[in-house]
Each structure stands twice: as C-alpha cells, then as structure tokens.
C-alpha cells in the first residue's frame, strides 16, 4: 500500500458561518469537541508565569458536563416540536396568585423518555405534592402540631409542605398515597390528644413570656422596688399592663425568638434600665 501523508484537517470551526444553526452542531448531549466549538476557552491550573492551558486536547473540558445542546434557540425548537402534543394553558390563570388560589396543591411528576430495550423507567413513579400551609384551614395549635408531625418536609421560609412519595410501584398509587397522607395530617393536627398537655418548655417552638419564670422574677423585683419606695398598694395586674413591663416583655420575646442582634440587645438594655430604674450618671 503506498504511504501517503495525511492531509492536514481543517477544524470545523473555520468552516462555520456566524449565523449557522447551532442546534445542528450539538443536537444531543455530547462531549466537548474543541474543533466544533468556536470559542477560545482556557481551563485548568495556569503554568508558572503563564496562563491556563488552551482547549485543544484539554481533558478537563471534556470531562465536565456541558449544556451546549440546550441553548435557548435549541429549546425553542424543542418546544415548537412538543407543542402538537400539548393543550392550551387556561387563559384565566394568567398570574401566580390566581393559580395558587384555585389550585393550592401542586403535583409534580416526571416522565422519562429514552431509547433502550424497555420504555419503563423506575424513577417515573416518584410524585411530589406541594402545598402552602396558609391555604389550609388550620388554627394555631393545629399548625404547630402539623409542623411537628411532618418535621423536615416543611420549609419555614416559603411556608410550603412538600410530600414526596415513591414507595408504591405505580405513579397513580403514589399520587393517591400522597393525597391520603395530606388528609390524615390535616385531620390529626386538629385533634388534641391526652398526652399533649404534658408539653414542656423545651418543646415550645417560640418563647412565651406569660407564666414564665422571667415574668415571676420581674414581678417580684418590681414589688420589692415599689415597697422600698413605700408604694405598697400597687396590684399585679397594674404592673403587668404597665408600659414599662410590656416594653420589657416585647424586647425579651424578640431577643429569644429572633436571636441576638445589635438592635434587639439595645432594646433589651433600654427596657431593663427603665424597669430597674437605673440612671446613667455621666
């Protein structure tokens, strides 16, 4: 066989037009091909006194996942292709609040399509149920009990309860199970059991000042202060509703529930100074 020299191959990037259809270069998920991506990318630890290695033969660029097949133009093409299989979005639901008001429970399921020996995918049976607790009719005790029952599944920031089920083999069964869980949680949280009255201070979610040791101590201290000033006819209710004590109570509750910030500590300090009648002397 005559030995011929291989002709030097011109990389595809040189032959690309700038208004080409990128979806043709990367129609599916593929590894990074330096000769097909017309970008001057560098990646890696820079050589001493130099820069990062270039893209040619750069293993780091090949190993990482890339989304070159999911550019906005490509996604638009996908949506256009899928449009024939979809139904119209209801025109009346044009913003998020209306969606939440009419459909408080959001059900999330995923369908998987792949070319393989079988069309089934075990991940497809997973069902996510999301609901905001403000849409449920719960009173104070019921809400606290529900949050305690679900534990990790409640997000305080967004007030969302997320129930994820995949213990049944079929998606329909998981969906029914999720709805059943929601129903049971709702009804159980409204009931009050016998043992709930043993709730101790450690179980409380937030600090309540009424009937706490702090309240007793403050009253005791105030009584002693008043008696040293020879005011003996003040009653407990008057003290409790007086502005100084209410101010102290608010600052203490804020301190305990929200944590210690500069503001909270400053308020607490001011209220205690007023309570104990301590004056600055400078």
């Amino acid at each position, binding site marked *: 066989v005559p030995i011929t020299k291989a002709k030097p191959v011109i990389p595809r990037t040189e032959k690309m037009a700038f208004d080409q259809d990128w979806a043709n270069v990367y129609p599916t998920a593929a590894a990074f091909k330096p000769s097909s991506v017309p970008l001057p990318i560098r990646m890696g630890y820079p050589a001493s006194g130099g820069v990062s290695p270039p893209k040619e033969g750069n293993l780091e660029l090949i190993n990482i996942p890339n989304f070159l097949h999911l550019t906005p133009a490509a996604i638009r093409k996908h949506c256009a292709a899928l449009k024939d299989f979809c139904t119209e979005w209801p025109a009346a639901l044009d913003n998020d609040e209306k969606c939440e008001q009419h459909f408080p429970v959001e059900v999330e399921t995923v369908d998987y399509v792949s070319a393989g020996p079988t069309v089934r995918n075990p991940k497809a049976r997973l069902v996510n149920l999301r609901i905001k607790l403000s849409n449920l009719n719960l009173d104070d005790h019921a809400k606290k009990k529900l949050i305690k029952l679900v534990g990790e599944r409640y997000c305080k920031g967004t007030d969302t309860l997320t129930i994820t089920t995949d213990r049944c083999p079929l998606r329909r069964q998981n969906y029914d199970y999720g709805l059943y869980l929601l129903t049971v949680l709702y009804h159980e949280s409204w009931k009050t059991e016998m043992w709930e009255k043993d709730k101790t201070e450690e179980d409380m979610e937030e600090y309540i000042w009424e009937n706490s*040791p*702090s309240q007793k*101590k*403050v009253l005791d*201290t105030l009584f*002693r*202060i008043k008696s*040293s*000033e020879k005011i003996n006819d003040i009653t407990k209710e008057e003290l409790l509703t007086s502005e100084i004590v209410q101010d*102290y109570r608010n600052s*203490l509750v804020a*301190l*305990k529930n929200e*944590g*210690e910030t500069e503001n909270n*500590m400053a308020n*607490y*300090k001011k209220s*205690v*100074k007023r*309570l*104990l*009648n*301590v*004056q*600055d*002397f*400078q």
Partner: protein
Amino acid sequence: MLRSVKGLICQGPKFIPACFSQVCGKAWLSTAANQDAQMTAVFRTSEGDPANHTEEHEGQHYGIPLQELQLVFPHGLPQRFRMQTETFNEACLMVRRPALELLGYLKSTKPDYPAVRYVIYGERGTGKTMTLCHAIHYCARQGWLVLHVPDAHLWVKNCKELVPSSYKKERFDQPLESSAWLKNFKMSNEQFLKEIKTQQRYLWSKRESTEEGHPLGEVVEQGLRRVKNASDVVGVVLKELKRQCSLGAYRLLVAVDGVNALWGRTSLKKRDNSYVAPEELTLIQSLRKMVTNDWNGGAVVTTLSQTGAVSKPSSAYLPHELLRKEGFDTLDPFIPIQVYNYTEWEFESCYQYYLERRWLQHERARMDEGRQELRFLSSANPQQLERICASL
C-alpha cells in the same frame, strides 16, 4: 513588700481637657512629632480616682499605685497585664467608654433596691476583664466590700482533688481552690472581716465550731486552717455577706469573671467516668445563690468569657450562646454592656503609651507606616495589639 517609689503615680503636665475634643487625628500626630515631652499627658491622666473619671478622660491611662494594686487585686488581674505591670513598674489602666458607662450605673445604685446585675460581653480580647477591674477599683475606693471571683472557669476545670461534701451527700468539695480564694479574699477585705459578725452558730466538726456574734474573720481562719472545710467556709461567708448586706451596713460588689462557667459544663469526672454537673459542686452552688437578685444594697458585675469555657466554639460571644437558657433565665433581667475593639483615639493612646514606655524597640514601629501596620495586624483588638507589640 514596698515596691520602688519610681513610677508609682503617673505624673505628667496636666493638659486642658478641652484640647482633646477639638484635636482630630492627623493634626494631633503632627503636633506629636514636634512636642514630644508634652505628649505624655495626652494618653495619661493623673486622675487616680475612678470616681472622677468622665468622658474627658476617655482613652487615657490612669495609674494605680502598686501597694493598692496588691490590696485590691490580689488575684484579679489577667496574667499578661500582671507581667506588663512588673516590666513597666507601674499599673496603667485605660479609661474606656463601657467602663465609664458601668461606673455611671454603679454610682446611681440605691441601697434599698434589689441588686442590679450587669453582664459585660464582647468578642475575644476586647477588654472585658479590664473593664471589670476598673469597676472593682472604683468600688474599692468607695469603700464597698468587693467579692471578686477572678475566673469561675478555674473552679470547673482541672481540679486535682474532688472530695465528697460532708454537708450534702451528692455534692463535691474543692478544698484547694476554696482555700486559695479565701486567702486572696482575706487579703483584700481585712477590716470588713473584723467588723462583720456571724449571725448563726456553725459547727465544723466534733470539737470545732464558731459561735454567733464572732467576727467573720474567724470563719475565714477556720477555712484556711482546716482545708477540708474550706468549701463550706466559702458557702458560709457568702451567705452571711448576702444576708447582712440587706441590712445596710455596707455595700457589696459581687464581681465574677467568666460567669458562664456557672451554668456550662465541667470537665471534671466522677469515679464512674461521668461528668460532674455544675450543680454538684459546692462552690458553684454558693456562687449561683450570690448572683441572684434577692438581696439589696449592692451590685453584681459579671463578664462572659469564651476563653476557658468548656466545649464552646471560639466565635461565641453573645449572652445566649455562652450563658445557655438556664443561665440567661437566672440572670434575667440584667443590663448587658458590650465592649468593642479600640477606637482610633484609644488605639493612638495605647500606641503612644507603649512608645513612651520604650516597649516598641523596632525602628519602624516609631514611624507612621509602622503604626499603620500595627493597626492593620491587630485590627484594633487590644489583646492582639499587646501580643504583637510584645515581640517588637
């Protein structure tokens, strides 16, 4: 006994206080270069009585005579400060705003009101213990009885001898710590111990007892003689002082450094290798009773300290983190006082003090860049600044 007279009381030409408030940083520095001799007075004040310290003295150092130091602080000062006192042959404390605030509150304590609790807190090395010492000095000068516990953490860690208490079965005594504390307490409050009489008869053993009406000094002597009873003696002393202070004969200042040790964890173990709870130590129990506010006629000044606290992260400095729920609820309502790093003025003052004492030997330390470098490295934290300057 008597240290050398040299450098006992800081004497510098007295500057008119109005100067300071008008002078800004840079202008002050330029005058500093010119008038070296008069600069001593800018960061020093000859006002030795804390009762007269006002805002004008903020940032200035005032000196405590060394004999008074021995009397008032036999065991109270931080170790590095004590080394500095020995090196400089004088003890100079900086007057700072949190201390002035605290002194203001202490000045207005009324004898019939329940004892007010103050908690000094702040990040590591900002000067909480020194603020406490300033307050103690003021009270000592005013004639109060000072009950100073230098570091409550020492009582919950590294105890060599843990003896089961004879008074209450589940409790443990710490004879060594108690006797050390009694010795120092006696040194600072001699004449009080002679005047205060016991109100109850105390039986120490089959043959030894203290009758009613005897001076409290005798009880302390008993504790020092029979080290076995020292912890109970401490408890008795605290109880008597608290009871009699409400009668108004004297004012009592309870100063506890590292009060979060009272409610934290201990690192002491029992025979069966389980940790001792703080409630099971006699000393801790007696001290807990002292920091409540069911007595009147005095004040309780405490600091929170993370250094030395058992099992607390080094970034914890807020009251709730260090005191835990139990401690916070016991001390509540208290007045929190926060101590910060040095301000520009205070940093200048400290720097000039070190220069004047010839502590900074490096040539670059005298120059402006050196000063800025020190400021940057220490980020105006008093403890860091002291450590960095120590090696210069």
